[in-house]
């Protein structure tokens, strides 16, 4: 390589465990990045990908030590650098864009001041030019009205805008190299797609080197030339993006790809069973041996070296040729089919939810609340055994609707009915024990939804005692049965949540919901906090439970492919209003509503050949408009005045597919076809 910027040679990084032994987090990792090259580092949580990226800056998290090897940036050893030397390089030639920019920007300083500070430290400009340069930088990251943004505080910007401001700050020092640590995780799909396009353009224009750390292969596919796959602190595969994403030669990479749900799949993704070894837990053999379908005798006793195969990739596997036979696309379980004429299990009638109740002062003055409802006009019937997917960006009100159904957030108006028209009381306190039992809620993050001080046995005993009055031997038998149903052994009963992995915790949370023998289970982003390989296992489990018990799901996720994998019907929400609802096959194949079209167009596939279709700008709205169509400000197919003033009517077709738009469905399909041909 002629123009190497970052050269990491054989580094091993570790920490001292409780027993005093050194536990490695990175093992013998090499990484060379050339000028103008963008490299993706992928892996699951704990694989060491962020540690590797930060090590490139000469930085290690507290407690970690460099045990072996060297890191050089443009020929200078980063771990031998003096502090002033490092300060000059970091933020100057080498800039980091962190995951959560909302937290990395100083909350008490205006955006302009923060960018000017970066300019003062890392540019040769005279102070008179700072202002103009800062405005220019904000313009380069495509923020609208840069002058206005300069005067804003970070909390006045949306997540996407904060990320853009952070990128502008990173660019202030005219860096040659950008380190990006999950820069789009936590952003909405449309925002993410726009930020990635921006990063790609910037890197190309300035011929920068980029190290892009992410667990999201879709994002990697958009911006990287080369991809490194990390597993248990080792590089297991290193090749071009096309090689790694299209025909990976390592069994782990293939498993990872197969576990990603995709829009085109008819099947559920395949779970990668087991979990990676803890630091220091890998034996003398291959670190992936316990989860590998190809594992042979040799893999247990000998650690494979990273070696080059004929097609040019570096791979750490003895049997990389055989690996190519492993399936790459979802060939997991088939989602359970449900007849569309199933009797209703849950009916939401004109549901309207508002977070704003008039304050004491307003009431004293006799003022009416002027806020527009957060969620309005939701009319949905879910059939028994059906899975309804609710999708939308953050702030679309999807989780709010679930909370309302669960009784945690009483609706302002409208009704919630169970099977046979039994009305549910708005507040949880007024519901009968039977109603409480029949509706169960599963939360996004099991770290938060399981009490850290309760053992699994105690967690499962709560619904069993409350709803069925079980105790003693009966309780134990039933707990064990339920654990078995979520594929966990009885020995888990005595464990605390901190002794479980993320996937195991979420299974316990699912088990707790199913212990109540519910009719309707509300799933709130249940896979979002999990690694992809674990996510696939949880989806498969939910599908199996539905098959067995005929449960009705309302499944909320921001990940459109995850919703697609499980849902029979899908409802698209924007600003708390329904845009489109219909059988999921139909909605995903022919998204008719302009918003659905925008949303699905922005989905990133882990495939370098599939580009997202970005229609509009990622303007973020904080509240729905007072009248007219909720999507009026962003709509690429806006008609005119009518969209601003009149609430759009429902336009229905066959199969219960309906959209809310002033255009007819046929008209929209015609417009889409025109765009496609143009």
């Amino acid at each position, binding site marked *: 390589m002629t123009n190497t910027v970052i050269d990491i040679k054989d580094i091993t990084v570790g920490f001292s465990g409780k027993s005093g032994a050194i536990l490695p987090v990175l093992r013998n990792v090499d990484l060379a990045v050339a000028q103008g090259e963008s490299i993706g580092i992928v892996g699951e949580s704990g694989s060491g990908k962020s540690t590797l990226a930060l090590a490139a800056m000469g930085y290690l998290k507290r407690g970690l030590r460099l045990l072996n090897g060297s890191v050089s940036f443009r020929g200078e050893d980063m771990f031998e650098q003096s502090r002033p030397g490092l300060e000059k390089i970091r933020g100057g030639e080498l800039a980091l864009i962190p995951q959560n920019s909302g937290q990395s920007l100083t909350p008490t300083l205006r955006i302009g001041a923060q960018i000017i500070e970066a300019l003062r430290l890392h540019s040769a400009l005279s102070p008179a030019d700072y202002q103009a340069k800062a405005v220019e930088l904000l313009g380069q990251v495509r923020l609208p009205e840069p002058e206005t943004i300069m005067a804003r505080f970070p909390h006045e910007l949306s997540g996407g805008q904060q990320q853009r401001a952070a990128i502008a700050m990173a660019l202030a020092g005219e860096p040659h190299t950008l380190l990006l640590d999950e820069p789009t995780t936590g952003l909405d799909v449309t925002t993410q797609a726009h930020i990635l396009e921006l990063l790609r353009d910037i890197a190309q224009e300035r011929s920068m080197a980029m190290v892009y750390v992410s667990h999201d292969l879709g994002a990697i596919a958009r911006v990287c030339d080369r991809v490194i796959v990390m597993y248990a602190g080792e590089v297991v595969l290193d090749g071009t993006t096309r090689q790694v994403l299209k025909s990976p030669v390592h069994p782990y990479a293939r498993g990872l790809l197969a576990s990603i749900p995709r829009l085109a799949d008819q099947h559920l993704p395949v779970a990668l069973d087991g979990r990676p070894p803890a630091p220091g837990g890998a034996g003398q053999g291959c670190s992936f041996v316990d989860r590998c379908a190809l594992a042979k005798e040799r893999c247990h006793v000998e650690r494979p070296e990273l070696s080059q195969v004929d097609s040019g990739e570096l791979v750490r596997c003895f049997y990389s040729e055989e690996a190519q036979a492993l399936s790459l696309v979802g060939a997991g379980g088939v989602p359970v089919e449900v007849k569309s004429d199933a009797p209703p299990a849950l009916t939401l009638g004109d549901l309207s939810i508002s977070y704003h109740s008039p304050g004491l002062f307003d009431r004293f003055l006799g003022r009416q609340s002027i806020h527009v409802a957060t969620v309005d006009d939701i009319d949905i019937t879910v059939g028994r055994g059906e899975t309804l997917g609710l999708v939308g960006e953050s702030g679309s009100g999807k989780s709010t609707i679930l909370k309302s159904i669960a009784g945690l957030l009483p609706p302002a108006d409208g009704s919630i009915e169970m099977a046979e028209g039994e009305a549910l009381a708005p507040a*949880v306190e007024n*519901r009968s024990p039977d109603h409480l039992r029949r509706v169960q809620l599963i939360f996004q993050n099991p770290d*938060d939804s399981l*009490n850290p*001080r309760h*053992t699994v046995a105690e967690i499962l005993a*709560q619904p069993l005692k409350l709803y069925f009055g079980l105790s003693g031997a009966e309780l134990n038998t039933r707990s064990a049965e339920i654990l078995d149903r979520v594929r966990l052994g009885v020995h888990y009963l005595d464990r605390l949540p901190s002794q479980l992995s993320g996937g195991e915790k979420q299974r316990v949370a699912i088990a707790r919901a199913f212990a109540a023998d519910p009719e309707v289970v509300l799933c709130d982003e249940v896979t979002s906090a999990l690694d992809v390989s674990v996510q696939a296992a949880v989806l498969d489990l939910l599908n199996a439970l539905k098959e067995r018990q005929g449960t009705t799901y309302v499944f909320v996720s921001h990940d459109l492919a995850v919703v697609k994998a499980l849902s029979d019907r899908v409802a698209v929400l924007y600003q708390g209003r329904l845009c489109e609802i219909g059988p999921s096959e139909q909605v995903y194949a022919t998204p008719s509503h302009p918003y659905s079209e925008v949303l699905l167009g922005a989905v990133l596939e882990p495939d370098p050949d599939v580009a997202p279709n970005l229609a509009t700008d990622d303007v973020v709205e904080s509240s729905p408009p007072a009248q007219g169509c909720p999507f009026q400000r962003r709509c690429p197919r806006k008609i005119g005045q009518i969209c601003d003033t009149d609430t759009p009517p429902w336009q229905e077709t066959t199969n219960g597919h309906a959209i809310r738009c002033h255009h007819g469905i046929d008209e929209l399909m015609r417009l889409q076809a025109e765009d496609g041909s143009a």
Partner: protein
Amino acid sequence: MTITAGSRTQNRFTPIVQVLRDVVARPSGAIGLTLVCLHLILALISPMIVAYDYKATNSSMMLTGPDAAHWLGTDHLGRDVFTRVLLGGREALLVTGVATPIAVTWGGFLGILFGLVGGRIDEVLMRFVDAFLSLPWILKMLVLIVTFGTGVEVLIPTLAFFYGIPVIRIARAATHDVIARDFVSAARARGHGRMTIIWRELLPNVLDTLMVEGAMRWSWMLLAFSSLSFLGFGVSPPTPDWGLMIADARGFMSFAPWGVLGPVIALSSLIIGINLTADALAKALGIDRAQKAPV
């Protein structure tokens, strides 16, 4: 596989042995706990080991300096200071030892309850707490003591009452952190009652904070008790007590400092011991005691 009731409940609270081990592993914890234990042991056994009668006066031996017979000299009535220092913490430890758990229990319970109920009731009640805390404690306490008299049966409830009020605030703040978490929402959505939620979901997660708070309250209460004795509202003579001894000996401080130094060292070492232990406890339990309570 059998599951006994014992094995299920043992983990609900951080195991006490493990916490103690963590406390002792830190220098501050080791020193602090040693000091506290030393004081507790001395309070228990001192009546059996002291060489003199604490109330035996001797007019020929007034304010003599330390020597082999009287290690800390004698006071203005010729009583042995060392004997009185050894015995002087008993009353204080008894009163505060009983009052502290009472204060933490009722304050903790109300704090968790207010935190859970929230809304306007909580808002109004907390303003009362604030108003109460804004008055100097010594005034409030003296009013009660002057009304009901001194003596253990008044001091214990008085101290337990006054020192429970700031605990309400601490427990409420800790509860607010826990209540925002999904497992509390999950319990509400299941339909559990308020008491079940307090007992099963909130208390185990607030208890660590309350333990540290209790240790801190204990040291403040000791100081308050000694102050009351110093002012003559605590222990009545001739019972030996550090606060009272300091009050008696302070007039002779310029030429007989041992009369003050003895009880001061005893009281400070106990309070420093408790504070060091509380510090180590907070670190062992992972609570950052950055914000100290008022009072």
